[in-house]
């Protein structure tokens, strides 16, 4: 390796080209001294020991979980929000490959990558929540609890992870220059997309259906037979809003990768996504109102929990739906992007309400759950590792641009 670097016409080795972005090890190391990486390193310096502590000392000392509150933010935030917000891969996949919306084709790879990593890291976070994490394959290989909604979630999330991997594979094979393998996987994309739609519909709604077994613990304003539908619809909203945010961020951060960068095209597509978000949000809002009427829970609205419910449903569903519609009608792209963030916060709020805030509402305050600092640190650490992984891949694989040596994928 030294010999090659010494020569004047520097020809990178395979490792240097694929892993170190065409730099030598020293250059690559130096290029990583950035403020962003300093923050990430700081988080990992605290987070990795916390993860070790959790694994060595168990859930008791590292969490505030109790017999009354068996689930905390590792389920309520990491799992429920992570999966809902990673729905972009499925939403964009459906739009591009099934409905043939060619304009959105360039979003497919980033959306699939975001989705894949979102699921992967949600599962990794979940692992730390499991008392016996080393038994995580048990529902697949040891004992089938087919009557459990969680059984469905486990299988479908695992299978869907595979589907998204298949959809992402063409980018990997292009990076590694494996033409034959790439061809096979490009052909498999349609099947993976259709299978992924079924799996997504079911496990997104199943994550809500988990709460169907707890009518006596979840506040009536959040408990309903419609939970599956609510979770599915809001996951579509989450996927769309995250795609708006993710495409904005990627096109800013990795703009040097895109040769024929066309901000106007991105703006046009963002408006389209904004419209879809708005329409789905309106539908979701009406579905929530129907649920309220169906359960005849109006009288709960004039209680503290009712006000909180209204904050979620008016402030983070109805108002964003109206603002997004206004922004799309008047071509305010920046407004669409800003309010997409509000929508995402609304989805997070909804999931946390279901799993933590409106859960066990009958208990006295002293028996309620508040996350331990280690739970928060572990969550932040997992997200940080997820972002670092995302960046690592974006810097190496043709996600935002078409690889020059390959025919672009047909959509």
């Amino acid at each position, binding site marked *: 390796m030294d010999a090659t670097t010494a020569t004047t016409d520097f020809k990178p080795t395979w490792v240097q080209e694929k892993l170190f972005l065409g730099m030598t090890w020293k250059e690559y190391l130096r290029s990583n001294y950035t403020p962003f990486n300093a923050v990430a390193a700081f988080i990992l310096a605290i987070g990795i020991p916390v993860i070790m502590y959790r694994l060595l000392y*168990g859930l008791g000392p590292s969490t505030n979980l109790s017999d*009354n509150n068996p689930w905390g933010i590792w389920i309520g935030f990491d799992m429920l929000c992570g999966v809902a917000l990673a729905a972009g891969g499925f939403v964009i996949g459906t739009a591009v490959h099934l409905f043939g919306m060619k304009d959105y084709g360039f979003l497919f790879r980033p959306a699939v990558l975001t989705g894949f990593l979102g699921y992967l890291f949600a599962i990794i976070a979940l692992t730390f929540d499991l008392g016996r994490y080393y038994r995580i394959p048990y529902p697949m290989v*040891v004992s089938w609890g087919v009557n459990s*909604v969680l*059984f469905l979630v486990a299988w479908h999330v695992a299978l869907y992870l595979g589907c998204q991997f298949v959809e992402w594979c063409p980018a990997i094979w292009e990076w590694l220059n494996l033409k034959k393998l790439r061809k096979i996987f490009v052909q498999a994309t*349609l099947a993976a*997309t259709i299978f992924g739609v079924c799996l997504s519909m079911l496990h997104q709604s199943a994550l809500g259906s988990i709460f169907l077994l*707890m009518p*006596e613990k979840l506040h009536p304003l959040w408990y309903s037979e419609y939970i599956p539908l609510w979770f599915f619809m809001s996951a579509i909203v989450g996927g769309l809003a995250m795609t708006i945010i993710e495409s904005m961020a990627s096109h800013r951060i990795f703009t040097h990768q895109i040769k024929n960068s066309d901000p106007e095209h991105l703006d046009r597509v963002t408006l389209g996504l904004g419209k879809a978000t708005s329409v789905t949000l309106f539908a979701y809002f009406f579905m929530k109102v129907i649920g309220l009427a169906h359960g005849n829970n109006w009288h709960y609205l004039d209680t503290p929990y009712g006000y909180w419910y209204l904050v979620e449903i008016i402030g983070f569903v109805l108002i964003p739906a109206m603002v997004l519609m206004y922004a799309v009608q008047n071509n305010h792209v920046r407004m669409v992007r800003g309010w997409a963030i509000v929508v995402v916060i609304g989805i997070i709020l909804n999931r946390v309400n279901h799993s933590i805030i409106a859960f066990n509402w009958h208990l006295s305050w002293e028996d309620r759950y508040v996350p331990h600092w280690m739970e928060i640190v572990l969550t932040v650490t997992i997200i940080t590792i997820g972002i670092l992984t995302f960046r690592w891949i974006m810097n190496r694989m043709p996600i935002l641009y078409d690889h020059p040596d390959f025919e672009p994928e047909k959509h």
Partner: protein
Amino acid sequence: MMDSDRRTFLKILAGAGITTALGVPGSASADGDLLPGYPDQFGVLVDTTVCIGCRRCEWACKEWNKLRDQKALKEYEKDQAVFQKARRTNADTFTVVNRFNNPRDQTKPIYVKKQCMHCYEPGCASSCFVKAFTKRPVGAVTYDASLCVGCRYCMAACPFDMPAYQYDNAFTPEVTKCNFCFDRISKEGGVPACVGICPVETMTFGKRTDLIDLAHKKIRDNRGRYVNHVYGESEVGGTSWLYLSSVPFNMIGFRTDLGTVPIPTLSKPFLSLVSPVFIAIPALAMGVYSFKKRRDKLEEEEIKKALEKKKESK
């Protein structure tokens, strides 16, 4: 009727109308209220008007199940401070006796023993994705730690908040709960440890059907002594453990808002959607896809024709 209408409605919505057309098998007949349960299962009738709060049952339970923090029997009887706050089951305690004010006679507080109710159709069993819980024909709901992954869904799904977890066990934590002394009651003439030690016969062990009769007979024969309700007879579809009380049950720590629908029934309509989705959605998706293909092809042909025309005109 109302309930089944709702479910059909949900299915129509979630399955885009296809579900009902396909006729989901088993969804109507699987309703818990139609299931007879194990006819010969055992139960225990707890008469809370009899209990003296000696907590010997707690001692016997720990002794038999070899739980941690065991103390001498005398200390259980002496310790009155423990009643100041209502306790719940935990990793080292499968059963607890709590004390409640008696509004009818302030000098005679009411003591209530609590443990797993051993539901006809247990929520814990339907929540478990590795089938670690089993409702046994003798009535006991047992737990198999060798399968448990530790997701703790069972704890969230139990309407009585009975299962607890060994949070301080780092590598092999287990869910803990009363197992109705499954090995004892499986033997001829065996009774649970708590029932065996009770000095005042607060608890009666026997066939559940007999206990229901006994409970109603007690209510009939002792006018004014009990409220006219046998807790557990129909709560969440019925439980093996049954309770009698002199005051309304919500005054002695029981939830009276649980309803009579078994917990597993609540997720069945959703689970019945799984196979239809896998049939209907790929079909729909392929349909949409072929439309798209056809449209693209027509577009291409049109462009070709236009180009040819241009050439010709030149």
